[in-house]
């Protein structure tokens, strides 16, 4: 099947996409956007979280063919090492992440949260991030990074 969609503001398309291919694999394999990471591949870990039409979703729990005509944002769209966005800067300054595997999922989930609620409380941040698993940090540095970004 053909898939036409917008990824990070750019129109992208692919032909002959197998219906069984998840959006996560499509982003990584067909579009070469390997910033989206796959941890568990069954919707538990949150590493593959991307933003689809404004909402954070798990890209391993959506088929690529379902994303036809959707607007997708991935970690590649947030900033570059030389030109980080303010959230990325504040996460760096807080030493929020360690190994980096869960980072893209957290960053997209936090981005979606801050777009809906620009000044969340610590409880709201914790609640929202409860679906993302990090095995390095113990989460405190991640929460601190978000709170720093929102000036709390």
């Amino acid at each position: 099947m053909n898939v036409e969609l917008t990824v990070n503001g750019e129109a992208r398309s692919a032909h002959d996409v197998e219906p069984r291919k998840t959006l996560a694999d499509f982003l990584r394999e067909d579009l070469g956007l390997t910033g989206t990471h796959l941890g568990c591949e069954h919707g538990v870990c949150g590493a593959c979280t991307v933003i689809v039409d404004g909402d954070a979703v798990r890209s391993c729990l959506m088929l690529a063919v379902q994303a036809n005509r959707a607007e997708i944002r991935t970690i590649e769209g947030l900033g570059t090492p030389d030109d980080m966005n303010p959230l990325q800067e504040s996460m760096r300054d807080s030493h929020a992440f360690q190994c980096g595997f869960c980072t893209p999922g957290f960053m997209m989930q936090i981005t979606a949260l801050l777009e809906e609620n620009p000044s969340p409380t610590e409880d709201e941040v914790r609640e929202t991030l409860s679906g993302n698993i990090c095995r390095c940090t113990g989460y405190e540095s991640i929460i601190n990074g978000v709170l720093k970004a929102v000036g709390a």
Partner: protein
Amino acid sequence: MKPPAFDYIAAGSLDEALTALAEGGEDAKVLAGGQSLIPLLSLRLAYPSLLVDVNRVDELSTIERTNGTLRIGSMVRHRTAERSKVIADAVPLITAVMPYIGHVAIRSRGTIGGSIAHADPAAELPAVALALDATINVRSAARGERSIAAADFFDGYFTTTIEPDEIVTSIDFPVAAPGTGVAVEEVARRHGDFAMVGAVAAVGPDGTARIALINVAEKPVRATEAEAAFATGASVDDVAAAATRDLDPSGDLHASPAYRKKVAGVCVKRALAKAREGAAK
């Protein structure tokens, strides 16, 4: 962890979906939000021959309140329901359980009808539907529409009384009396996980209660004896005892049968206390 191969149809209308489902036979399945079905595919626990995707069937995504009934389309997503003022005003127990359903990113895609049709005994919405005497509306290409009371809908583990060629189109919830107090109490190992045990309760301004239990049997359980005891003014302890007396839950890695039964009583007690506090006196 990759789904097996299947045929796929993105239905543009309900009629198209129903026809495809009927022609696909017994191994054709409906794809709603996919938050339970896609993991089942990835884990190779399900091998459907055809997936009929209803995500583009707009007619299934409406929320309507008419007279005493709130009708929620089966493809209304949990996030939409969570944010809906119409739902919060009409059936506050639905709004109350939303934060307990998975995590935010799961609720972005998951649907009301999908949760109901999946019939996981550990899920919240089936218990809410049972407690509130909801009606599930289903449709097939061959036999048209029919309505099933929640009490007749849930049949066992992940099993309902809908036929393979039927699709859940909407769920009707009776609008709660103004001043109804509601509560959800669950015990889970980790926040957002399926509950080991839980209870939902609604207490009306007239002092009657509706109570259903989560994950204590192969399907949600309505605590009718406890409701009757509550109406006669029994203590919360006695009501909780009535709710769990006949339970025979199974045990697993996370909770033994005895523990599950004990905690079910605690959940009922806490939920009732909280719902009663929220109800208009």
